[in-house]
Each structure stands twice: as C-alpha cells, then as structure tokens.
C-alpha cells in the first residue's frame, strides 16, 4: 500500500499515457518487457487501491475525431475515444422505402456493424438505443416522407462502446447538417466490486465491473436522453454516476464545437 502511494504520481502518468496512446504505438523493447508488465499490473492495481471509494478516473480518455472522411455519403465522421474507435456515415434526408415511409415525419434507420462477423442480438439492441436517441435529436417533422439512415462501423473495441457509438453518430449528423433540436453527448462509467466509480472504462475494466452505465445528455438543458445500465446498483450509486457523467459530458460538447470550428474555418 505504502509502495503504491509513494509512486502514485509516477503511476498516474503511466496510466494516462497508456490510456491515451493507441496500443499499437507502444512497442516495448524486450529487456523492459518485464518492467512494462509489472507497470501494467500496478496500473490495474492503482484503480482499485487508490482514492478509497472515490472516483478513480475523473478524466475521459482522449477523444479525437475526423469529419467528412467518406466521399459518397452526405455526412461522415470517425471518433476515437481512447482505443475505441468507430466510423459513421449519414445519408439524409433521402429517399425512403414505401414500407417505412411516414407521412408526418422522417424515418430514422440505424445500422451497427461489429468489427468482425455478422451483427447479432447485441448489435440490434445497440441499433435500437441509438435509433431512439437519434429520433429525439433530429427534427424529423421537417422532412416528412424521407429517411435519415445512419451506418456505424466499429473499428476497434476497447470499452465504452455504446457511448462512442452515440457520439460518433452525433458527429456524423452534425457533418451532414441534418436539422437537429440539440446535440447529444454520451458518457460511459462503471462501478467496481469495491464500489469505485470508473469514468470511461476500458474493456478490461468493463468486464471486471459490477455495474456499467451509459448516459446520453442533450446540449441544451443537459438532461438525460438515454440511460443504459447493466448490473445491480443502489440509488446513490446512480446519482454519483449521473453527476460524474454529466460533468464529463461538457468535455465532449466542447470537443464537438472545436472540431466543427476547425472544419468550417477551412476557407
């Protein structure tokens, strides 16, 4: 315990660099491999040992993105949140199949493609969640008898998948310039067995977690749009998670603004 505390600051930086750099970009020389794995172990330990019961990761992983990277779609975006990365494209308001046509509003269709294999039940569930969120974001009443179709391709899965998918969907909608009521930012968090809150957990942390929660907030009133949780939790835990995620969502909204500013100031 004492050992951990003495090297806390050092560990923290190591954790941060590890979380922020893509995994492929950290080649380890063979002679330091042992020390590296040791560090990894310590880093994992860090999250359960420090800050008794407090939030151990107050920061989100580094978020980077790119807009209009596909040439044929009306809008597209890629988003990397830590190592989790996804790409999304939007077509719309476009032609709609007669079976799906709605007289009073636009139809929102979402397709979620996993990194490998065919989409299964999990992907359908995600599609449903994203579709419902997007329907409340897009001003569908402005484009009756048309469709807004969104395709999200998972590129790498390293935790906080649903949050990343929601954020990349929002970014692609912004790029396509679909009429929207507000923007959406999603944040994922997890509770460990010992009741610590981890914001934006990695895949490993997610798998070990007792509870995972994903919140999506709107940009105007900062209210909840969507909640998706797994596991059993108390009311207090929900409130702490909500508070922490809400605070973190500001960071994502700022990121949206930054990236759009960059995109529009090209001229």
């Amino acid at each position: 315990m004492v050992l951990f505390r003495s090297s806390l600051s050092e560990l923290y930086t190591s954790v941060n660099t590890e979380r922020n750099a893509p995994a492929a970009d950290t080649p380890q020389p063979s002679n330091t491999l042992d020390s590296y794995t040791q560090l990894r172990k310590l880093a994992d330990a860090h999250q359960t040992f420090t800050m008794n019961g407090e939030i151990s990761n107050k920061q989100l992983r580094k978020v980077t993105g790119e807009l209009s990277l596909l040439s044929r779609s009306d809008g597209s975006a890629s988003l990397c949140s830590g190592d989790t990365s996804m790409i999304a494209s939007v077509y719309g308001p476009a032609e709609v199949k007669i079976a799906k046509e709605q007289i009073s509003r636009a139809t929102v269709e979402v397709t979620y493609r996993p990194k490998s294999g065919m989409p299964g039940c999990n992907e359908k569930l995600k599609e449903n969640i994203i579709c419902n969120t997007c329907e409340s974001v897009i001003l569908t009443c402005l484009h009756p008898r048309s469709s807004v179709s969104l395709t999200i391709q998972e590129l790498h899965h390293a935790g906080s998948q649903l949050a990343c998918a929601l954020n990349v969907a929002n970014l692609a909608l912004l790029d396509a310039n679909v009429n929207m009521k507000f923007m959406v930012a999603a944040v994922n968090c997890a509770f460990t067995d010992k009741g610590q809150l981890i914001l934006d957990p990695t895949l490993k942390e997610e798998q070990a977690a007792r509870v995972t929660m994903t919140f999506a907030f709107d940009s105007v009133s900062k209210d909840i749009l969507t909640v998706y949780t797994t596991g059993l939790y108390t009311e207090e835990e929900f409130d702490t998670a909500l508070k922490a995620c809400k605070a973190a969502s500001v960071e994502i909204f700022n990121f949206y603004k930054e990236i759009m500013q960059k995109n529009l100031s090209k001229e």
Partner: protein
Amino acid sequence: MADEMELDDEIENEAIEQAPEVNTLFMPGQTIDNLKALEGTLKVVLGPGLQIQGSKVVVTKVGILRFKEPNVYWLDSHQRRYVPVQGDHVLGVCSMKAGDVFRVDIGSNEPAGLSYLAFEGATKRNRPDVRVGDLLYAKVQTANKNMETELVCVNNQEKSAGMGVIRNGGFVFTSPLHLVRKLLNPECVLLKTLGKTLKFEVAIGMNGRVWVKGRSSVDTIAVANAIMSAEHMTNNQIKVMCQRLSHVLSTVPKEDLEPEEVENIT
C-alpha cells in the same frame, strides 16, 4: 441565378439591446437573443438553420451566423444533400415518363415532377422531346415538404431562358452545396478567371450538380477539376490556380478541338 436565401418566417422581437454575435459558429440547440429588427416594426426575417420555438429563436444546424441589413439572419452551413427551395435552378436527370409529367431526379428525398407543358413552345400537340436519362436544367416552381416538388423549364415570360434539356455531351459532377453557392457568389472570381483562358459552357444547379463542356475533353476535365478543387480556396488562391492551369494547358497538344461556337450560358 437563384443564390438568394429562402426566407421562412417573420417574427416579432421585443427588445433591441445587443446584437447577437454575427460571423461566429453556432451549434444546434443554441438560442439567439437580441436580434436586430426592422426599425419601428419589431420584425425579423429568419433564413435557413434558424427556427422559432415558442418565443425563442433556436439554431437547428451547425453554421456561421450571417446578417444582412436591415433585419435578415441566416446560418451559413456546409451540406451535401439538397432540400428543394422555391426559385432554385437545378440540374436533374429524367428518370421516368409518367403520362403528363416527367419524373426528374434532382438529388432530393424524392423525384420532382416536370409537366410536359412547362417547356418553351410546348402545347398538347407539340410535346417536348425528353427521353429517360436526359439531363435537364430547370427551376423549382413549388417546394413544400408535404408535397411533391414541381419543376418548370420556362420563366414568367414563357421563355426557356437557358433552361430545358442539355444535349451535346459535356460532363456532370456533384459537389457540396456550399461550393455551388460560392461559385454563384458575384464576388467569386473562379469562372471569370477560367473564362479568360478557356472557352467553356457551364450550368450550375443549386442542388450541387454542375455541368461543364469545354471545346475539347481536355478542357472539360480541366474546368471540372478547377471547380472541384476550389472548395476551400480564397480568391487569390483561385487566381494562382487558374494561372497554373492555363500554363499547363498551353503545353497540351490541341487535337480534338471541335469547331462549334461555344458560349457561356450562366
């Protein structure tokens, strides 16, 4: 050309204290206060990207807020999908002949209708010669989200005014809508500068489609590439680019020149 903005609504504005930040970025959901109204009337005209919700003016798109005296506000944004607006000139492809109307694909959510009587000199007996696959330059007559878009190929005086079927080859490409708006902006020097060294015809549709025809296929490709690459260029950069282009083109052997007279219709 129809590069003027469609103005949606008029609202009443209570207090005029501080003007909103014009020429800055606005994101969906943001509200705009203190719009500058027409003197004495409390009226403000809102363009694309702005909407009234209750008593507030809300932004619905990402873009830069623009203002024009005396009381016009709109959002300047980047978009690739066309949403029909009345009065726009568009380029479409005839996709179907259905009785009295042609169905024309203009890149919007549904094909637009074009009556066979909406051509210069067309009567019930004298039908225009439009075939499926033909390129049409037309004007949007009615654009309503709840109704089918209607096109016409005549102006108020029942003259074609450059509209109608475009034949004799050329090349069509699609570009983002803001590029088209830029080309039609009187301040943009691209077409004028290109026209100094090259002879070409061009038809620009507000739906993001551009048809170009030069004297040779080399010229056509050069003009098309120049337009496509001008998206993020300033006027000075455009001039430099055109200079380089004319320099490169002067080295290309002129073999397949067609002797026909070329005129600029836009």
